[in-house]
Structure formats: structure tokens, C-alpha cells
């Protein structure tokens, strides 16, 4: 699971001063369940109104079994000014980037001090 793998490499992200935030359209209670289930200690944010999905243009209209809109699985590396440094938008759950690949991209785009 992607979130579990990220948690396992969390120290590597912290060393690079990169914060991880997971987000979905789930309400806060389901977000809490997912956080507990994954064992993640990084921040989870509830985008129940889909504001983030629209800003990042990853809204999957009717993507949930009940017809509700959800996020396309995606990862964005964003600088403090809101500039996209790197992104990966999945077309299937099989194509999510591994933490090692993300760290490689971070090193390429955010060279150390």
C-alpha cells in the first residue's frame, strides 16, 4: 500500500525537509480510520468539497461505486509558492510511484543545501 510504503521511508523525506500530506474526499472520521489503518504519522487532510481536486485537476467524476466524485490517485511535489515540481497521475492502481522514485525526483529537483 502506497501510504504504508511512504511511512516506511518517512525519515528519508524528513532528511530532505519534504513534508508528506495525504488527502482524499473522505470526511474526517474516515480519514482517521485510514490513517490508523496505514500506521502513517504524516498529515492527512479531508478534501470533502473537492477544492484540492479542482485546483490540481484530478477530480474523477463519478469514480466511486456510489457515483460520487473522488480523487484520481496522484502525487504532486509542490513548493511553498504553489509551483508543481513533479507529479504523477495514475491511470490504474498498478502505476503508483514507489518512494524510491519520488526521492530520486526530489533529489533532482530540490538539490541539498
Amino acid at each position, binding site marked *: 500500500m502506497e501510504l504504508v510504503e511512504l511511512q516506511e521511508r518517512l525519515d528519508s523525506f524528513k532528511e530532505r525537509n519534504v513534508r508528506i500530506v495525504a488527502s482524499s474526499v473522505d470526511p474526517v472520521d474516515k480519514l482517521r480510520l485510514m490513517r490508523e489503518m496505514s500506521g502513517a504519522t504524516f498529515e492527512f487532510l479531508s478534501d470533502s468539497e473537492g477544492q484540492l481536486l479542482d485546483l490540481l485537476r484530478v477530480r474523477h467524476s463519478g469514480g466511486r461505486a456510489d457515483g460520487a466524485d473522488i480523487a484520481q490517485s496522484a502525487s504532486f511535489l509542490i513548493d511553498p509558492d504553489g509551483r*508543481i515540481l513533479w507529479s504523477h497521475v495514475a491511470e490504474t492502481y498498478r502505476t*503508483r510511484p514507489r518512494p524510491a522514485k519520488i526521492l530520486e525526483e526530489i533529489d533532482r529537483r530540490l538539490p541539498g543545501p
Partner: protein
Amino acid sequence: MRRFLLHQLLPLAVVFLGIASYFTLATQFGVYQRLPWLHFLIVVAGCGWLVTTLVKKPGVMAGLSLALGLLLCGTFFWYTLSYSIYDGTNAGAAVGEQVEGLTALALPNPRGETTPLLLPPETAKATLVVLYRGYW
């Protein structure tokens, strides 16, 4: 009985193994593959074995076994090549693009507090935002 086990149940088990191993690897071990070629190969080999059995020893059971094998194989191909591909994939915000509104965006966290999506550079050089489809 031995012939039935060897030439019909065993190839069916191979087809099943190809499918089951795909889901086991993905869900239990996080092994994701854009296209699971090895599993395709295993299920096709199982079906090929069933075809060979039917050609060599035609019969109702051989026919039924082949039908079941093809059904499993077809369902697996449909799942991996069509069903599991998200409809209408958007490209998302482009690399290099400065997205208006991200810096001001704050969302609730599991503790019910509103938290900014992005932090100032002295706190974090960048934020990796991972969007997941939700708790099912």
C-alpha cells in the same frame, strides 16, 4: 480419476494460481505492475493445457474445464486491461505550473483542526501531496 486430476483440475489450478498470485502480490506485498505479464503467461499456459487436453481426449468434462478456464482467463484480462483502468484520466496540474489558490488552501485534519496544505519554506522545502481514492 488420476487422468481427470492431472489433465483438467491441474491446468485449472494453474489458471487460478496465475490470478490468485496477481492479487496476492499486489495486495499483500505491494508489487504493482503496469501490465502483469507473468500472470498473463501463467493463465494462458493453463488455458493452453486445457485446450490440449480437449484436443487429445475430447469429452464433456474436458469441454467444461476449458470453458471454465477460458471464463477465468477472460475475466482476468478484462479486469486488468479494462476494469481497473480509471475512466477519463485527467493529466492534472502540469509540472512548472504555479497553481493559484494552493498557498491559501487549508483543510481539516483527523483531529478536526484546519491545517494549511503548504507550509512556509523555512518549515518545509516542499510538500508531497498524495491523493488517494478514499476509504472503501
